[in-house]
């Protein structure tokens, strides 16, 4: 016979005001196997826990039910106390009589609360009777991390992990790391130059002995589980042998062919077909754009190979598949800008002098297409009036996205300043919906743009943008003065919405992490677990999770890195033993569980006879991969699988105790 102890917590008055805890305790005494019951004011207090330990020892209890708050609050506390008293922690169960009883049934006569608490506690006692002692399991851990994405968030995460002494592989899709931050001119609110603060970090990363940098590469396949991921990376053929290339740039200089530059945002800006995306690229190794290179299209040219001193050009290079084993993954794939051609009223794509905010960054950048001079794309004239339109696509549930892109208010204010600093007599106008400048020194920055730099802020939407006599006419509303305005501008800059990176969903599916309706990756908890995903061992950093600015991205990169480091600081992984278990005597190898398992944790295992021949097949659970959801258990038609901690027996015991 079981020897169970029941403690009913009063939680001060939180439970006791609507539940007669003493009565509940007395009722429980009637249940066979219950040898000790008591109600107490605060079970979670140090005194309460001591009491529990003392009673366990004195009464030689083999199981404990604490009827108290939600198990999400103090299950761990009480299980630890039990463990300290020499009891297996999984022989302790919680009956939730606070969140799911006393706090939601306000009957002051205590009748309702007492009745329900009695039921809930009884169900828990019956369940506990079927609880088996369980042991946490240890699984080995590969102390090497993979960072996907080489923007500022990924760089920061990789650097932090490498600095603490663990190996890191950073995979970047483009030929260079740096991400969007490399495209920016100056950054708010300090106006320091983006590349000046970014490039030292890029170099530091590439020189770090613990970092393996794989640029022009993509993650193709991810298998395994926390501590033991197997990752396949496709290293696209650069057509340049990295070990030989010195980065002299001769090939680029002599290459006679050009294609549109992705880095310069706007169509019409060219780069060579053998190229590095920007002068400070890391690694400083060019790649051949095979889609545009005549050598690959019609086997003509081949100049780059001729001029290359160290003979680093290799036209026959093939994509390489690299397989790596890592213990943790940081996803930092960043964002794209929403294509805004469909917003007809703004004329983007139709009117040459309507540009995106990112293009304006390139115009203002000293290394940009105009060498840092603000010149409009159509005729190269210095624009004397520039209109900035905010919320293009953002906060527009009908045609764009309902969320706020978060950085546009700040960068538009910055753009007006950059413009004013470069074109002193110029006038900037900003059409805005609201100014969102929450952040350290952010609002002061916007005030400065308005009050000191003379930007005119108009609260309202723009209804149409069209060309007239070489000007771009912007018609809109100024809702504060209640008037219609028409501005003869030379250039219009659109603050387009931030959207998830193209291919974000496909990558999420490869990784087995979840994403929201837009394609931004889901954090495990919006407040308390902001950089973890619901897949153990995979962490998030930067704008792949949602719009955020550089400081936030960097903070997240470091946060994700610290999660990885704390994971790696352990000898091996300790896992809750809530795992599926196969009874191999009953398993008939129908593989329903194999197909149902979301984690590929079911393995097909051959049972062999004495002569080594396979007698039959059975399912086996990989304890490292199993997350304990129990989908396989409900799928199993021969009832061969059960879930430890939530066995059929336990559930039926609880149901049986209903009456």
């Amino acid at each position, binding site marked *: 016979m079981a020897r169970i102890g029941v403690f009913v917590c009063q939680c001060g008055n939180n439970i006791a005001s609507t539940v007669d805890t003493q009565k509940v305790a007395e009722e429980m005494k009637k249940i066979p196997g219950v040898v000790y019951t008591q109600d107490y004011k605060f079970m979670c207090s140090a005194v309460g826990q001591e009491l529990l330990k003392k009673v366990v020892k004195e009464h030689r209890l083999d199981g404990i039910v604490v009827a108290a708050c939600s198990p999400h609050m103090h299950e761990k506390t009480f299980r630890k106390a039990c463990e300290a008293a020499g009891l297996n922690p999984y022989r302790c169960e919680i009956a*939730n009589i606070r969140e799911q009883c006393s706090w*939601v049934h306000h009957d002051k006569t205590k009748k309702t609360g007492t009745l329900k608490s009695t039921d809930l506690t009884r169900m828990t006692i019956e369940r506990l009777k079927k609880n088996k002692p369980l042991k946490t399991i240890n699984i080995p851990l590969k102390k090497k991390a993979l960072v996907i994405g080489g923007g500022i968030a990924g760089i920061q995460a990789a650097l932090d992990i490498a600095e603490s002494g663990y190996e890191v592989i950073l995979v970047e899709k483009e030929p260079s790391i740096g991400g969007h931050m490399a495209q920016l001119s100056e950054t708010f609110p300090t106006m320091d130059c983006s590349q000046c603060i970014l490039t030292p970090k890029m170099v530091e990363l590439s020189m770090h002995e613990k970092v393996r940098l794989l640029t022009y590469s993509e993650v193709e396949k991810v298998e395994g589980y926390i501590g033991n991921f197997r990752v396949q990376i496709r290293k696209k053929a650069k057509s340049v042998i990295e070990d030989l290339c010195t980065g002299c740039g001769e090939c680029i200089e002599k290459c006679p062919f050009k294609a549109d530059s992705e880095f310069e945002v706007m169509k019409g800006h060219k780069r060579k077909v053998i190229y590095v995306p920007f002068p400070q690229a890391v690694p400083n190794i060019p790649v051949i754009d095979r889609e545009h290179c005549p050598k690959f299209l019609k086997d003509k040219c081949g100049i780059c190979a001729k001029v290359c001193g160290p003979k680093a050009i290799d036209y026959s290079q093939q994509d390489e598949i690299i397989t790596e084993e890592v213990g943790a993954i940081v996803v930092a794939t960043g964002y794209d800008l929403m294509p805004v051609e469909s917003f007809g009223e703004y004329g983007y794509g139709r009117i040459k002098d309507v540009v995106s905010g990112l293009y304006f960054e390139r115009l203002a950048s000293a290394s940009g297409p105009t060498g840092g001079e603000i010149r409009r794309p159509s005729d190269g004239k210095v624009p004397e009036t520039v209109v900035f339109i905010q919320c293009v696509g953002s906060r527009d549930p009908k045609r764009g996205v309902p969320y706020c892109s978060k950085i546009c208010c700040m960068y538009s204010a910055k753009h007006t300043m950059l413009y004013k600093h470069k074109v002193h007599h110029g006038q900037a106008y900003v059409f805005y919906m609201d100014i969102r400048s929450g952040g350290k020194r952010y609002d002061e920055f916007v005030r400065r743009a308005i009050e000191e730099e003379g930007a005119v802020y108009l609260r309202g939407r723009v209804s149409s943008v069209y060309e007239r006599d070489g000007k771009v006419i912007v018609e809109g509303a100024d809702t504060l003065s209640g008037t219609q305005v028409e501005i003869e501008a030379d250039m219009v800059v659109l603050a387009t919405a931030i959207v998830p990176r193209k291919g974000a969903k496909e990558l999420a599916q490869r990784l087995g992490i979840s994403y929201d309706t837009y394609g931004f990756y889901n954090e495990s908890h919006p407040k308390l677990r902001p950089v973890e995903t619901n*897949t153990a061992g995979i962490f998030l950093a930067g704008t792949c999770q949602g719009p955020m600015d550089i400081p936030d991205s960097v903070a997240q990169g470091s946060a994700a890195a610290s999660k990885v480091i704390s994971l790696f600081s352990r000898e091996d992984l300790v896992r809750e033993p809530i795992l599926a278990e196969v009874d191999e005597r009953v398993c008939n190898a129908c593989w329903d569980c194999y197909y149902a398992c979301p984690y590929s944790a079911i393995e097909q295992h051959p049972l062999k006879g004495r002569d080594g021949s396979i007698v039959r097949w059975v399912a086996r659970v990989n304890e490292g991969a199993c997350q304990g959801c129990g989908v396989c258990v409900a799928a199993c038609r021969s009832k061969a699988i059960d879930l430890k901690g939530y066995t059929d027996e336990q559930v039926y015991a609880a149901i049986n105790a209903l009456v």
Partner: protein
Amino acid sequence: MEEKGWEPRIVAFVCNWCTYAGADLAGTSRLEYRPEVRIIKLPCTGRIDPLFIIKAFEKGADGVLVSGCHPGDCHYTSGNYHARRRWIVFRELLKFAGIDLRRVHFSWVSASEALKWRDLINEVIETVRSAGPFEAYRRLNP
């Protein structure tokens, strides 16, 4: 044929991550709802064997509720989809067996939807009440 003072008994099978946490939040927010529900927590709705529901009816439940994470939000990626598929088939089976479908409910309640939980419970209890005590099944089980 309602008994005097009869109140329905509802068993709710909920997942640990969304609905259980949502029900906890209802408590933390001190919302009030009808008390005739008994929650049984499982890691995931995908763990729910249809036989649990049969058993609950056998043991005197007048109505059953299954609730988990919204589609796409499952802590275990796809457990709730398995639950949904099973549920659709199982519901048809119950209907075929002549069980009043006012007794069986399925819903998604996230960890932040305390209000939805409260309204859901009140609604389920009302609906089950309108179906009356589940005598038919109990008579099979003397």
